[in-house]
């Protein structure tokens, strides 16, 4: 019982940390701070997964977000005006609409969490090694099609990103 309550404390702690970093994303006018705050918000989420004993998911989250958010940071620094936040630029847009959307989103999420029939709650999570194994079996068995579709989706993303972002060879030659 003591362990469970400690677990709850950690879940709460990392949850609040994630929210705190999330708020910081919008409170700062430096693009770099904003990007890294989002990074640490995601890291805190990963730590929350760990506290909930979803080890693979947590570690994966912690790993992926570090590189992906850093790459987001370089794109933000490349394309946003005043990335250092020296002009103390206001970062929020259309405040009333965003507040409304935020509140509605929060209510909807809370509603789903509260009113869904989640089924029987298991008393203990499977061992971490078991989780990874089960995930692998799932990928290669029942969800194989989904998995291969993900491959095609990633391919599409690669092609789209390349086609949109890179100056075409023709334009390059002219330049």
């Amino acid at each position, binding site marked *: 019982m003591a362990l469970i309550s400690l677990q709850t404390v950690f879940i709460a702690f990392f949850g609040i940390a994630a929210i705190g970093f999330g708020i910081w994303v919008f409170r700062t006018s*430096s693009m*770099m*701070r904003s990007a*890294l705050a989002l*990074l640490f918000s995601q890291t805190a989420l990963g730590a929350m997964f760990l506290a909930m004993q979803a*080890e*693979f998911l947590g*570690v*994966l989250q*912690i*790993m992926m977000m*570090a*590189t992906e958010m*850093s*790459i987001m*940071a*370089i794109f933000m620094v490349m394309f946003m005006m005043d990335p*250092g936040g020296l002009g103390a630029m206001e970062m929020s847009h259309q405040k009333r609409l965003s507040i409304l959307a935020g509140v509605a989103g929060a209510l909807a999420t809370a509603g789903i969490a509260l009113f869904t029939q989640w089924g029987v709650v298991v008393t203990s999570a499977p*061992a*971490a*090694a078991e*989780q*990874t194994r089960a995930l692998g079996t799932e990928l290669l068995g029942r969800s194989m099609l989904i998995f291969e579709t993900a491959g095609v989706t990633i391919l599409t993303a690669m092609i789209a990103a390349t086609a949109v972002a890179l100056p075409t060879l023709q334009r390059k030659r002219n330049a």
Partner: protein
Amino acid sequence: MNTLVIVLSLLAGAYLVAVLEAWLATGRFRLAAPAWAAVALLGRESIVPRTPDRIFFETAPVLLLIAALLAAAVLPLSPSMVMANLATGALFVNAALAYVLVALLMAGWGSDSAYALVGGWRFLGQVIAYSMLIVMPITAVAMRAESLLTTDIVSSQEAVWNILYQPIGFVLFFVASMAVAFLPPFDLPIAVGDLAGGVEAEYTGVRLAVFRLGRMVLVITLAAATTVFYLGGWMGPVLPPWAWSAIKILAVSAAMLLGGYTLPRIREAHLLAWCWKLGIPLALINLFIVGVMVLIWP
């Protein structure tokens, strides 16, 4: 208790790496050199630039040290000497090492200095280059061990060490881990000749001492990872397991330092091009070969 012993032995290893680095740099072997250097750094002023991003500037060296140490926490020195034997250990090493990038970006941005800034962004390019060459070979190692547990990975090499079982993977991982620790010839973010120290340029005194300590621990951690994944970890005749681990780790870190000593720095454009045009296809071939081999000769 176990944890304390491992942390202390890691620090001792980091110290020996520093001795070795000083030996290469000055040509004289002096066991006390890093100690004196550390005392000198502590005694020196630690200056903060005029308009830094103070949070980033202060966090970066600490985050580097934390990242290096956390990666080491899941690597076993002997069957019982491992701080946290996580079920996803091999993945966790990656996760911790990813924060080396975050630390260097923070250091580069935080001091608001041109040299550091270029150094920080350069390292992001370096990460984009080497990252897959860390991740894919580790996957191949996990395929053979059927587990992400680092202790299982060592035991899977009972018959043949992975350096012989998957030599392509070893070479890729070894080179990439030199790039993770930004050792020469991959010292792009802290290049002295290009950037006058790069991300390190603004750190002085105790902050520089923490930064350097973090880098030394990082070197030891990567040597330990190479040992665990490819050199059979603690395995070896006669000597006790921890001694074999220590010997292998020190040998690997010496090889890393010596390799860099005799090579000029790589150009960033070449690093990216070679890693993507040669390294990733090789890593995929390695995955395929190991995949076939695991099925016919485990």
